[in-house]
C-alpha cells in the first residue's frame, strides 16, 4: 500500500474505530473527485470520520443537517444588503468547503436536494449574478437514515446517479464497540494531526490516473453495466422481472475510476477483476431500480448485482 495512504489511515484510526469500509469509500471518492452517499443509522461515526479526514488532510469541513424547512439559500448562500453603503454583499453558504457532510439529505425538499446535487456536479455556485468556483478538493458525503421514513423526500433516481458510490454502513463489531467505549470513558482519543497536504492529494490523484487497466477489464466493466440493462442477454432470465431500470453510462465511468482507486489503495499498479468486484456493489446499488415484484419478495439490489457478477466470466 502507498505509504501516504497507510499513514493517513493510521492517523484516522486515532479517532475512528473500525468502519474501514466507510473510510476506504471516502478515500476513493476523494481520490476520484466523486461524492459518496452513506446509508446507516445514527451514531456510526459519520461526522467523526469526515472531521478526522479533514483534519488529517488539512482541509475544511462543514456539516449541514437537512430539515424539511431548509431553503437552497441556506446551503449555497445569499446576497446581504448593507444599509450603511446601500450595497449588497455575498454571504457564502456552508457549501463553500472541502468536505461536506450533508446529514439526512432525504429530510429536505426536492428544491434543496436539487441545489446541492447541481453544485456537486458543476462544482460552482451562482449567487445573484456572481459565479463562484468551489475550492478543490470538494467531496460531499450525504447520509440517509434507513429507518424513520415518514415525511422524507426520497432522492429521485436521476439525482442518486450523481453519487459515485453508495455505502451501507453497519454497526461496529463487538470488539470494536468495546474499544470505542473504553476510549470514550478514558478520553483517550488522540488528536488528529495533518499528515498530508492538498498538493500531496493531487499527486495521488495523478498516480491513480496512471494505474493500468487492461482493455479486457475495461470491456468487462462495460459488460457489467450492460447486464443491468439487459439481464436476458447475459443468461439471467430468471431475475429479469426483478429489475425495472439498469444503470446509466455514468455508472461505467464511476466503476472504472473506483476500480483504479481501489487498486491504488491495495498498492497495485494495475487493476485486477477483484478490484472491480470490491467496488461494483457500492457503485451500482443505488443506480438500479428494483421492480415492485422484487421489492415484495424482500429482494435487495445487492442480490441482483451479485447474480450479475456471478454470471459474467472474468477476463
Amino acid at each position, binding site marked *: 500500500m502507498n505509504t501516504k495512504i497507510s499513514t493517513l489511515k493510521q492517523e484516522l484510526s486515532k479517532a475512528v474505530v473500525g468502519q474501514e*469500509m466507510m473510510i476506504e469509500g471516502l478515500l476513493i471518492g476523494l481520490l476520484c473527485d466523486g461524492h459518496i452517499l452513506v446509508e446507516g443509522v445514527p451514531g456510526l461515526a459519520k461526522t467523526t470520520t469526515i472531521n478526522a479526514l479533514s483534519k488529517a488532510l488539512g482541509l475544511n469541513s462543514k456539516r449541514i443537517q437537512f430539515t424539511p424547512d431548509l431553503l437552497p439559500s441556506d446551503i449555497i448562500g445569499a446576497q446581504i444588503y448593507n444599509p450603511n453603503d446601500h450595497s449588497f454583499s455575498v454571504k457564502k453558504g456552508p457549501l463553500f468547503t472541502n468536505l461536506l457532510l450533508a446529514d439526512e439529505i432525504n429530510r429536505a425538499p426536492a428544491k434543496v436536494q436539487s441545489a446541492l446535487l447541481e453544485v456537486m456536479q458543476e462544482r460552482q455556485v451562482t449567487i445573484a449574478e456572481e459565479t463562484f468556483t468551489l475550492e478543490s478538493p470538494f467531496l460531499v458525503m450525504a447520509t440517509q437514515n434507513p429507518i424513520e421514513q415518514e415525511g422524507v423526500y426520497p432522492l429521485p433516481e436521476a439525482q442518486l446517479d450523481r453519487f459515485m458510490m453508495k455505502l451501507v454502513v453497519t454497526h461496529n463489531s463487538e470488539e470494536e464497540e468495546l474499544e470505542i467505549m473504553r476510549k470514550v470513558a478514558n478520553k483517550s482519543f488522540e488528536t488528529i494531526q495533518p499528515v498530508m497536504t492538498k498538493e500531496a492529494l493531487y499527486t495521488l490523484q495523478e498516480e491513480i490516473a496512471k494505474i493500468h487497466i487492461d482493455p479486457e477489464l475495461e470491456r468487462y466493466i462495460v459488460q457489467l453495466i450492460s447486464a443491468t440493462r439487459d439481464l436476458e442477454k447475459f443468461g439471467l432470465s430468471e431475475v429479469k422481472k426483478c429489475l425495472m431500470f439498469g444503470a446509466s453510462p455514468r455508472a461505467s465511468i464511476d466503476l472504472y475510476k473506483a476500480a483504479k482507486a481501489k487498486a491504488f489503495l491495495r498498492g497495485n499498479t494495475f487493476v*485486477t*477483476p*477483484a478490484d*472491480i*468486484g*470490491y467496488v*461494483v*456493489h457500492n457503485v451500482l446499488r443505488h443506480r438500479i431500480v428494483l421492480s415492485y415484484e422484487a421489492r*415484495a*419478495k*424482500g429482494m435487495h439490489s*445487492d442480490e441482483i*448485482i*451479485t*447474480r*450479475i*457478477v*456471478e454470471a*459474467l*466470466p*472474468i477476463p
Partner: protein
Amino acid sequence: MKHNLGSLFVVMLLMGFISSVFAEEFAYKIEANKQEMYLKEGIVLTVDLNQTDPKNILLFQFEVNKSDAFAIYPLYAHHDDTSHATTLHESYRIYPLKTGDINISFSLVKRVTNDLKMRHFASGDRDDFKKLETKDVPIALPPVTLHVKPLPAKTQLVGDFHITTKVQTHEAQAYAPVAMHVVIEGEGYPPVLDTLYPKSKDYTLFSQTPEVKKTVSSTGIAYKVAYIMAFSASKDFTLPKRTLHAFNPKTKKPYTLTIDAQNFHITPVNQNALVDTQDMPQKLVEDWSWVKSVLSYLLVFTAGWLSALAFKWERRRVTDTQDPLIEKVTQCKEAKALLQLLIAQEDKRFTTSIEKLEALLYANGTFKLKEIKQEILEILQ
C-alpha cells in the same frame, strides 16, 4: 254659582256651532242606478263624498255593511286625502239575492284633525311612529232600498252569456280519458253551476272545480267560467243534450244555452293485456346480498393473507436450506471461476482467499486451489 252658569252657556254655544259646522263640513251622494231589478241582476251603487268646509282636515272611513240579501263586489275606488279637501268616490256591483225590498246600509266615520296634529304625525319615522290624533265621529246615513223582483221559473243563469263546447275526440280506447271543455262567458251573475252532467253508469266522469276568471270594469264585471271534464268508459256512450235556462235582465227575456248531444265511440281492448303479469312492487324477500359481500371481503382478505404467508414461507425455505454458496464453491473447478464467485459476494471474510486466488492466477503464486476452497468452506460453515 255665577261661574257655573257662565260655563254652561259657553258649552251650549259650542254644541250649536259644531252641529252647524258638521252640517256644512261635507256633502255626500249615494245612489243605485236602479231601484227595481230582478233577482241576481247586477246594479251599480255609486258613492260620492266631498269635504265642503276646508277649515279642518277631514278623513273618512266608509264601507257598505255586508248582508246575505245581496252580494257586493267593488268596481272602482278613488280616495283623495288632500288636506282640507278630502274626496271619496267609490262604486260597487251589487247582486240582490233575495226578492222583495232589501236595504243596503252603510257605515261612515268622520275623522277630524288639524294641521298641527298632521305635522306631528308626519314627522315620525318607522322607528318612532306617532299616532295621528283624530276626533272620530260616526255619521248615520240612511239606507238605500231596492225592490227585487223574482226570476222566471227554472232560471239557472242571470245575465248575457254564451256557451262554447270543445271535445278533444269522439273516439277513444276503452278506459282512455276523453277531455271536454265547456266555457260560459258573458256579463251577469257568476255563471257557476254545481255540475253540468250528472253521474251515470255508462261512463265515469272526472271533473274539477270550475275555473272562474273575471274582468272588472267601471261599468260591470264580465265572467268566463270553464268547466273542465273528462269521461272514460268501456263501451260507446252518449252525453245527452244539455239545456241551461238563462234570463237576460236587460232585455227582460229568458233564453237558453245548449250543449249538443255528444256521441263517443269506444274501442274495446283486451282486458287481460292490461293486467300486469308481474307483481309490482315485487314481493318482499329477505336480502342476503350482504352475505355475498362479506364472503367477498373474506376471500380477498384471505388471498392477501395467504400471499403474504407464501412470500414468508418462500423466504424461510430459501434461508432454511443450506447456503447455496457452499454448493457453488464446491462445484468450482477453476481458480478463475472461484475468484469470480467470491468477488461477486461483497464479503470481507473472503478477502484473503481472493488475494490468494489473484496471486495464483496473475502472479504465479504457489497456493493450491483445493486448499483455498477448503478455507472458504470453513468460513461458510
